């Protein structure tokens, strides 16, 4: 057992480092500059420039086929690139949904002409894509969406509302799941399309989150007309297409969250005075530190097991399905505990500089436990797919969508 690269991986890592050294700045450890960076009003423009550079060098989506600008490379090389990139100051996050989920769905369903038109600009950061799935009445139960698409001559008319759409406010295009037939059971009545976010009738409104940030949006559709050529997959087979998108989400290998870790908690515990001395000497505090260290270390090592499978060209086991189930509550609980250590001042947004990071974990953790699969849904997935337990009894499976809840 070792954590070493194969000769091929080591050579690639060296190549990547050289390229990154020539094209990006190494990260400093200064957290202040991290925040300043994120508040940079020109961040999107910088991100586009960076994406173009990365794509031109062939690093942006290495596992994609060559015809689409990839290298047809093994996923482990893409992971190595990501690992190395994480040591440099580069703008992140604007293209992940488009390139990780939307474009792969396009590749599965769109016409060759559309692929020729859309893939390259997306890869090179010229156009950004978003994923229009969740709705006010359809979160964990995405197949319960109500946004309608109705035939109108050669095209379709879309009416309804999406919510929690990441990046809709700066996106150029989106893939959207709609209900085309409410008279059949819910999974059978869905159809997927793509559309320009500039299409008349599309209105984007940002959502202010509990944390104060605004990364997500509500998107309203009022008589939005699109041609039938923008349909992805057959009419009524939108659920199958949506699963393609979501599968791609799961294939993405999680990177270290970048959240605060046990080292920071220990630092705080050393500096905190409790009745019986420094908090780090208190057995309750030590017990918690140990528990979170074991989780943190366990997640890192679980990723290494997944990477090992990728490195050997094997399909990884289901072990990575535990990562968010553990990481999200840990983030929330560790943040809350650190605030408790600071005493009443742990709630202050000023004068207590060490509080901000932990407060952000505590607030952010509440959202992280919901985003991209709630704690509960993820447990269902483990129970059903890993342990082979039956799906819940469903009252909505064989009932026409428009008859649900009417009995």
């Amino acid at each position, binding site marked *: 057992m070792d954590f070493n690269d194969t000769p091929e991986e080591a050579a690639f890592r060296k190549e990547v480092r050289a390229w990154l050294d020539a094209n990006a700045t190494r990260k400093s450890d200064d957290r202040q500059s991290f925040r300043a960076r994120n508040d940079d009003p020109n961040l999107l423009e910088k991100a586009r420039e960076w994406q173009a550079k990365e794509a031109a060098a062939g690093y942006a989506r290495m596992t994609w086929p060559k015809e689409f600008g990839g290298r047809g490379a093994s996923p482990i090389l893409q992971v190595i690139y990501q690992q190395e990139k994480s040591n440099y100051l580069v703008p992140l996050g604007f293209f992940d949904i488009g390139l990780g989920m939307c474009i792969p769905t396009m590749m599965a369903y769109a016409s060759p002409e559309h692929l020729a038109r859309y893939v390259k600009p997306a890869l090179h950061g010229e156009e950004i894509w978003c994923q229009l799935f969740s709705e006010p009445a359809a979160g964990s139960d995405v197949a319960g969406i109500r946004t309608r698409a109705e035939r109108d001559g050669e095209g379709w008319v879309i009416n309804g509302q999406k919510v929690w759409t990441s990046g809709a406010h700066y996106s150029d295009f989106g893939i959207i799941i709609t209900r085309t037939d409410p008279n059949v059971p819910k999974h059978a009545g869905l159809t997927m399309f793509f559309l320009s976010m500039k299409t008349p009738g599309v209105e984007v409104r940002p959502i202010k989150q509990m944390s104060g940030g605004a990364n997500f949006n509500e998107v309203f559709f009022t008589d939005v007309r699109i041609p039938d050529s923008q349909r992805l997959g057959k009419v009524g087979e939108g659920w199958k297409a949506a699963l393609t998108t979501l599968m791609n989400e799961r294939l993405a290998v999680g990177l270290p969250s970048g959240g605060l870790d046990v080292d920071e908690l220990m630092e705080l515990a050393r500096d905190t005075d409790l009745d019986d001395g420094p908090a780090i000497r208190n057995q309750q505090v030590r017990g918690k530190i*140990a528990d979170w260290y074991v989780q943190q270390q366990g997640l890192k*090592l679980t990723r290494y097991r997944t990477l090992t499978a990728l490195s050997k060209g094997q399909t990884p086991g289901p*072990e990575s399905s535990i990562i968010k189930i553990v990481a999200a509550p840990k983030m929330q609980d560790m943040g809350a505990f650190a605030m408790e250590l600071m005493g009443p001042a742990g709630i202050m947004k000023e004068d207590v500089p060490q509080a901000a990071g932990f407060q952000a974990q505590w607030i952010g953790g509440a959202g992280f436990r919901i985003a991209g699969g709630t704690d509960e849904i993820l447990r*269902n997935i483990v129970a059903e797919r890993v*342990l082979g337990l039956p799906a*819940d009894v469903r009252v909505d499976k064989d009932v026409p969508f428009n008859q649900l809840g009417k009995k």
Partner: protein
Amino acid sequence: MNFDFSDDQKLLKEQVRKFLTDKCPTKVVRRVLDGPEAYAEEVWTGLVELGVPGVGIPEAYGGLGLSPLELCVVAEEIGRAAAPVPFDTSVVLATEAIKLAGSEAQKKKWLPLLAEGKAIGTLAVSEGAQPPKPRNVATTYGGGFLNGKKVPVADGDAATFAVVLAKNGLVLVDLNQKGVAKKRVETVDPARKHAELTFDGASAELLGAEGDGWTLLERLYDAAAVYFAFAQVGGAEAAMWMARDYALQRQAFGRAIGSYQAIKHKLADCYVKLELARSNAYYGAMMLTDGGADLPLAAAAARIAATDAYDFASKENIQTHGGIGFTWEADTQFHYRRARVMALSIGGPMAWKDKLVTRLEQKNAA
């Protein structure tokens, strides 16, 4: 990145698993639990024939000379079967103690006997109601003689020799002699027999230097923690699947109980804890193999995660079974009992968490 066992190691694991599935089904565990046997002799003999006690013993001393990784995969299978054999005592604790601290003469004498299964060793630390600490060890060694009482000692009546923690060091003592009295004691896990050993001027010799007892014990526990973690992972996995199989088969309110989220989420949590434990155990194995500097920390993390996983899976296995799971006829009790015994035998989670943080502090200060 090569954070996995090799194909050969997986093959060995399969081999041991197949043997134990055939020769050590739960009815064998039950037989030992219900009866007077010290351990399942036919299972132990079969394991000896497979070479299990010699896996980690160098060839020069009559063993197979394999790496700790091989012993880890064997430990996982022993744990999965909850096998009533002196594995954790003889193969792990006694063998590792002699490898760690034994003189050349001691290694030459004991390791070949251990490898061939002709000697069964154990480790005797506890002296009763208080958790063992350097300041409360009363057993004394001097002038070649050992005096004191150790209880509970796992496999204490089956063992032919013991490594004993005395006030002034670790001591090797042959248990088949006049100065040693063995008395079986009842514990919560009758499938693993324990005894009280009384030493009344028993002839003995130091294992390692005088005064090094506690330090050596801590190092021995670090290695043992990794092997125990694999056994605990195996046991936790067995308990999880036992619960899952029952949840598929048992109907309540018109459907399989495994379709209720209250059961599904509980079993998903078993899986989460199991994988956290497995990953931490792998790292422990890696550090053990390379003599890695990170072993003390890795061992503590493996120990804590695996103890938690086994405790949780074994108790929720009973809970998933409902009333039938609480009967003497049910197999659920085996893992519940074993999980507790394994959790306490080389120090409980509370002590290991304290150790882990101490080691983190040392690492951060370095």
